[in-house]
């Protein structure tokens, strides 16, 4: 199933997240990731949703979201016209013999090492969600102790403000 990215601008009310996430549980939609943060306007937050659903379900999701009073507008950022970024923190198991190889690979991904011990390396990676997944897949062979991912955030490229859909 292809992933869709929806950027949902909401009024910054207590409870708005419950309304949005509650909609997903109530109607049984699958969320891959959800991230919330502030915007240029302190009264407005943006919720970036990544969902794996068929296009007609994504349409239903948009319509149902528009029924929530705190939802201001929804922009479909699926596809090439938008930038998608995510941050991951990953702690990888290392030992004397593979440490060098691990550090080289980390470099290949342009990730930053945050902390190192004899047995672990903690890395920070800012990249597209896909690149982060690939990074995790590669380091799975060495053993991953723990991962924290922020979930996708996204904005349309200023040069391609197409397909943006005002609610």
């Amino acid at each position, binding site marked *: 199933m292809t992933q869709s990215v929806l950027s949902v601008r909401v*009024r910054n009310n*207590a*409870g708005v997240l*419950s*309304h949005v996430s*509650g*909609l997903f549980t*109530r109607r049984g939609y699958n969320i891959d990731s959800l991230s919330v943060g502030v915007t240029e306007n302190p009264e407005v937050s943006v919720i970036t949703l990544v969902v794996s659903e068929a296009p*007609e379900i994504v*349409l*239903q999701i948009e*319509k*149902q979201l*528009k*029924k929530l*009073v705190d*939802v*201001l507008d929804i922009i479909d950022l699926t596809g090439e016209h938008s930038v998608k970024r995510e941050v991951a923190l990953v702690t990888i198991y290392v030992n004397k013999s593979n440490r060098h190889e691990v550090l080289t690979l980390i470099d290949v991904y342009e990730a930053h090492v945050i902390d190192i011990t004899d047995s672990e390396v903690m890395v920070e990676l800012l990249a597209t969600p896909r690149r982060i997944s690939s990074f995790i897949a590669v380091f799975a062979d060495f053993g991953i102790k723990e991962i924290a991912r922020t979930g996708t955030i996204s904005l349309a490229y200023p040069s391609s403000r197409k397909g943006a859909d005002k*609610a």
Partner: protein
Amino acid sequence: MSIGPEKTGAQVMIDTLLSHGVEVAWGIPGGALLPFYDDLYNSSLRHILVRHEQGAVHAADAYARVTGKLGVAIGTSGPGATNLITGIANAKMDSIPVLAITGQVATASIGTDAFQEADTYGLTIPITKYNALLKNPDDVARITEEAIRVAMSGRQGPVHIDFPKDVQSGLTRKTTPGELKVPARHIEPVPLVGDLDQLADAINHAHRPVFYVGGGAVMSGASEVLLRIAEKAQIPVVSTLTGLGAFPGTHNLHLGMLGMHGTAYANYAVQECDFILSIGARFDDRVASDTKDFASHAVKAHIDIDPAEANKRVAVDIYVQGDARVVLEQIENSVLRVETREWAKRVAELRDANPLKFTLTGSDIKPQYVIHRIWERTRGEAVVATDVGQHQMWAAQYYPLKNPRHWVTSAGLGTMGFGLPAALGAKIGKPDSEVILFSGDGSFQMNIQELGTARENNIKVKIVLFNNGFLGMVRQWQEMFHGNRLSHSQIHFNPDFTAIAGAYQIPAMAISKPEEVEAAIDFLLNTDDIALLEVRIPAEEKVFPMIPSGKAYTSMMDYEHSGDGSVFSPNQFKEN
């Protein structure tokens, strides 16, 4: 924003309600509502004290259904609020504008598990269109205004305001709403979107069209234009459970209810049609149980005020977003006059060949017959409230309503216990109409305490209580689909309902023989007071026709006569 003299938050809310023409609220006070009720004490807002908050919200809901105005229900924090929940969910499912106001512990105590604290805001999120927890008296006017506007706009529905005690008593100068913060699309008329020419064309080109009418037609006041178009183009009309009354029940073109317990001829017409237009109906599972099979040969069109209903369960060929009345008025002139239509004759044939029917015997009273006679005696003009179960379906089948907003039934949620408080709400909303409640022995006992509210306020509803000693609808399914294992559907002990009525000083009578029916209806209709008629009926009586859940229309089972007695089919269409 006017900056007048200071008022309490409670006073501001009451004033805002009054400014919207709210005349009556239903509720029960409590600790967290003392400041609110203190301001209510001297206000012109009528308050009816119920016996259980569920009664308050069902009454408010029914009041809204029959009047088209906002219903208001009030409960205190904690248990008062949770008692409202069923009724709020009920109003949500049937898109009824109800404002639920709940007391809440003081803002400083929220989150501390204070006495009678519950997260009411959290509880109402999935069952309201809008909800808010007030934190500041300055917000009361705006939020109350927003709640009311949202409830009454677009696809209507319930809203909830959680009102902490200190915000009720706190003072504010912001006594008018000022600038609203909800996006305009929630409070302004829904714009008409869609191709009206295409819709009119599709109607004109259909050979076997059907109008499939739902609650949206009632809510939008589409009845008159619907009748004009249906007559002009000779288009048969089928109704959903909530759509009943939108089209005159006894009209030649009316085929009654469709779906699970719809008439056989309505369902045959839907199967045979080549065009079906949903007018404010949502292709739900009681109507289109098997979505692929539903009107499978037909071009499907849909008018709905809620764009999220487009293609939700059944994909349609034409969708028009908008208020049903407005859309119909816009296409009226484009729909062509048809003098007679072969199809209209065909459905009349279907109707004559497959009428509603049941068996009359000399020994038992048949509920269908009682409803039929009450329908005749009240000329189809009463406001009919029901509970949930077999009696509800019989009422839908055998009381063809003449008018819209005369039908008060819990459709989407199917809430047993809705009936009695709903009848009270309906009578307050339409005091000059006869209000008849058809209830069952199971449902009636779920809110039987509201007999007290009826008596105290002399709300003269007429109660017909069908006593089959069973949760009859459950029994019917167990008999038909679960090998007749009647697991816990029998009510082994029922009280003496007439004695209970007597204890509430309500005139009552019980009958069990067919020859008693006429006098009992005389008693019911001629008593100038609340009246309760208990009708003892055989437990085996079933609701037919029936399309089993999940099945196609071809699986419809119709009534089959066996044993003694004679088959009776009421002629509901003699007036036209």
